[in-house]
C-alpha cells in the first residue's frame, strides 16, 4: 500500500486526526497519555492546554458549535478522564460532535485497580453517543475513523476513545489512505410527506417550532426558504435561536419556560404544530398534556427515537432536513392568523423601561446585541443571565449563540468561548456569564491569557445564584438557602491577575461607554455589570403549568 510507514499508536492518532481535518485540539497531559503527548510534540496539530479537563471538553464543544467541525479533547486516565464527563454529557444532550481521547493504564494492568485506573469505558456508556476501548494497535486506525464518522453521522454526538498506554507506544504499519466511511446503520422509515401536505393544506393556524436540529443539519437556507414560501409564523427553542431570520415579521421568538408571551400563546392556540429538529423538551412544553392542546403535529427529525417520544405525532418526516423541508414548502392562506400573531408580537414586545439608577441586564444585553459586529459569536453560562441573553440578543445563525441547552451546565460559557475563538480567530466572541457560573471554570482565564484570545466577558453580577434565588423567592417562600454570593472575589482584580483588562460598572449612565470600550478593545476584556440582586427573569411559566399561564411579575 502507498504511504505505508511504521509509526506508534500515538503518532497514528494525530495522522488520522489530520485526515479528518483536525487542526486544533484541547487537552491536559498526564501519566497514561504521555506517549500521545510525545507524538503531539512532532505533530502539526495545534494543542491548547486548558487548565482543567472540563475546560478542555467545553472548549471542544464550543469549537464544534462555532465552526461545525468535530471538536477534539484529550485527557489522561483516572481523574483526567472523569473530569471530561460533564463536557461529554453536555455534548450528548445538545448533540454536539466531539471526539474525546483518554489515556488508559497499560492493558496488562487493566482491571487491577492500578494507579489512576478508572473504567472510563464503562462510565462513558451513559454520557456518549458511542465509545471504544482499543486493546490491539491494529484496530486503532479503524476505531479512530469510526469515531469521527459516528460523531458526525445522523444525530451528532460525542464519542470517546480510550487508549491504553501500551497501545499508544506499540508500532503499527498502516497506510493512511485506508479511510473507511461508516454507513448509516439505522434505516429511516419513509417520510410521511403526503399526510403532512394534507395537514398543511387544512391548517388555519399553523406554527413552525424550530429547534437546534436545523443548525446541526446545516439547513438554515432551506428553513428560511420554507418560511418564505409558507409565510408561517414561527417560534424557536433555546438551541434553535438564530435559525429563523430574527427580522422576520412573523417570527415570535423563543417559546417555553422563559419564552415570549406571543410565542407561547401562539403555540397554545395553533391548530398545526410543525416541529423541525426539536424534541418537545420539558423546558419547552411546560405541562405536557396541555401543550399546544388543539394542534395536529408534523415532526421533522433525523432521530427515529424522538418521534412519539413525548408527543404523539400525526406525520413523521424522518431524514435530512435539507431534502425534506423543500418537499413541504407550499404557499398557505393564513392571513388572519399571521395578523393575529403579528399583533401579539407588537402588543407583548419587550419593555426596557426600568425605574431607578441600577443597571437593567436585559437592556445591557440588548445594547450589546445592537452594537456587536456582524458574525459575533455569543456564549453563555447558565442562569438568569443566560435567559436574558436568549431573550434580548438577536442572532442570525445558531453557530453564533452557544449555550448549554439540554444539560444547563454552569461553567460552560468561558471555556466554550475559548473554543469558539480558536475556531474563529477573527470573529468577535462574547461570553455572557454570571457570578456563580464564572467561578466554575474560572481557571480558563489562564488559557485566554496564554493564547491571548481576545474574548470579551460580560459578567452579569447579582452576587447571587440568581436563578435559584428567583425560584426560592417564587416557590419556596423566600427561604434563600445557599444562594448568596455576596462574598465574591474582586472580579476586576481577578481578571487583572490574568492580564485581562477589566472594568466594573454599577450605574445605568455608565453602560453605553463601557460597552463601546469593551468592543473597541483589541485583547481580552472583562466587563463586570453589577445589577440588583432582586431582578427576575420574566415571563416565567411555573413548573407543571400550561405555557399560556405564565407569570409576568410578582
Amino acid at each position, binding site marked *: 500500500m502507498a504511504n505505508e510507514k511504521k509509526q506508534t499508536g500515538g503518532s497514528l492518532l494525530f495522522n488520522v486526526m489530520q485526515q479528518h481535518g483536525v487542526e486544533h485540539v484541547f487537552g491536559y497531559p498526564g501519566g497514561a497519555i504521555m506517549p500521545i503527548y510525545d507524538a503531539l510534540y512532532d505533530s502539526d496539530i495545534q494543542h491548547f492546554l486548558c487548565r482543567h479537563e472540563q475546560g478542555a471538553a467545553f472548549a471542544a464543544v464550543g469549537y464544534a458549535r462555532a465552526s461545525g467541525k468535530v471538536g477534539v479533547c484529550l485527557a489522561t486516565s483516572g481523574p483526567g478522564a472523569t473530569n471530561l464527563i460533564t463536557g461529554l454529557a453536555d455534548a450528548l444532550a445538545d448533540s454536539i460532535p466531539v471526539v474525546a481521547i483518554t489515556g488508559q493504564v497499560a492493558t496488562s494492568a487493566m482491571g487491577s485497580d492500578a494507579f489512576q485506573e478508572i473504567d472510563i469505558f464503562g462510565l462513558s456508556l451513559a454520557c456518549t453517543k458511542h465509545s471504544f476501548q482499543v486493546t490491539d494497535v491494529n484496530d486503532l486506525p479503524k476505531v479512530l475513523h469510526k469515531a469521527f464518522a459516528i460523531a458526525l453521522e445522523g444525530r451528532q454526538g460525542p464519542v470517546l476513545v480510550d487508549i491504553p498506554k501500551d497501545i499508544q507506544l506499540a508500532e503499527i504499519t498502516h497506510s493512511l489512505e485506508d479511510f473507511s466511511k461508516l454507513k448509516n*446503520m439505522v434505516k429511516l422509515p419513509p417520510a410521511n410527506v403526503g399526510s403532512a401536505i394534507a395537514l398543511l393544506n387544512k391548517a388555519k393556524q399553523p406554527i413552525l417550532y424550530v429547534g437546534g436540529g436545523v443548525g446541526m443539519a446545516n439547513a438554515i437556507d432551506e428553513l428560511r426558504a420554507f418560511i418564505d414560501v409558507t409565510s408561517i409564523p414561527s417560534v424557536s427553542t433555546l438551541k434553535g435561536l438564530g435559525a429563523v431570520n430574527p427580522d422576520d415579521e412573523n417570527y415570535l421568538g423563543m417559546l417555553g419556560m422563559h419564552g415570549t408571551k406571543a410565542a407561547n400563546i401562539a403555540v397554545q392556540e395553533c391548530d398545526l404544530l410543525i416541529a423541525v429538529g426539536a424534541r418537545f423538551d420539558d423546558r419547552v412544553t411546560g405541562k405536557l398534556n396541555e401543550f399546544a392542546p388543539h394542534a395536529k403535529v408534523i415532526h421533522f427529525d433525523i432521530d427515529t*427515537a424522538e418521534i412519539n417520544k413525548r408527543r404523539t405525532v400525526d406525520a413523521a418526516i424522518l431524514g435530512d432536513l435539507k431534502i425534506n423541508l423543500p418537499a413541504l414548502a407550499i404557499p398557505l392562506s393564513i392571513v388572519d392568523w399571521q395578523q393575529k400573531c403579528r399583533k401579539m408580537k407588537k402588543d407583548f414586545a419587550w419593555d426596557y423601561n426600568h425605574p431607578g439608577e441600577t443597571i437593567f441586564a436585559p437592556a445591557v444585553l440588548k445594547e450589546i446585541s445592537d452594537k456587536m459586529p456582524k458574525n459575533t459569536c455569543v456564549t453563555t453560562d447558565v442562569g438568569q443571565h443566560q435567559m436574558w441573553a436568549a431573550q434580548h440578543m438577536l442572532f442570525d445563525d445558531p453557530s453564533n449563540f452557544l449555550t448549554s441547552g439540554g444539560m444547563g451546565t454552569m461553567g460552560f460559557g468561558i471555556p466554550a468561548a475559548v473554543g469558539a475563538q480558536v475556531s474563529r480567530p477573527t470573529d468577535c466572541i462574547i461570553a455572557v456569564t454570571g457570578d456563580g457560573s464564572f467561578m466554575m471554570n474560572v481557571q480558563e482565564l489562564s488559557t485566554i491569557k496564554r493564547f491571548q484570545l481576545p474574548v470579551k466577558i460580560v459578567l452579569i453580577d447579582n452576587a447571587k445564584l440568581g436563578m435559584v434565588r428567583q425560584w426560592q423567592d417564587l416557590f419556596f417562600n423566600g427561604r434563600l438557602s445557599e444562594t448568596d454570593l455576596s462574598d465574591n472575589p474582586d472580579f476586576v482584580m481577578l481578571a487583572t491577575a490574568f492580564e485581562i483588562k477589566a472594568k466594573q460598572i454599577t450605574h445605568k449612565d455608565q453602560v453605553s461607554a463601557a460597552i463601546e470600550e469593551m468592543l473597541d478593545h483589541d485583547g481580552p476584556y472583562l466587563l463586570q455589570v453589577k445589577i440588583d440582586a432582586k431582578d427576575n427573569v420574566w415571563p416565567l411559566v411555573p413548573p407543571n403549568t400550561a405555557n399560556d399561564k405564565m407569570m409576568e411579575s410578582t
Partner: protein
Amino acid sequence: MKSYQLTIKVDDKQVVLERILQVTRYRGFLINGINAEVNTGTNIGTIELMVRSERPIELLVDQINKLIDIKEVKVDNNTTT
C-alpha cells in the same frame, strides 16, 4: 404493566450487552429475563430480552436501535400481566 420479549441481533462486541442493559434500565423497563449467545462462525450475537414496563415498547426498541453495534431488534410477543 406489559411484558415483551425482544430478540436483538448484535455484532459480537464485549460491551454490547452492557449497553443494552443500561439503555433498558434508563428508559424505564424492568428485566424479567435474559438469554444471550454468540454464533462464533458469523460473530453475531443473539440476545433475548424479556422486559416489562408501563411505557410503550417502541420507546425502548427505538433507543436500542440507535446503539451502534445493533443489527436488528424484533418484538416477539406482547402480553399483559
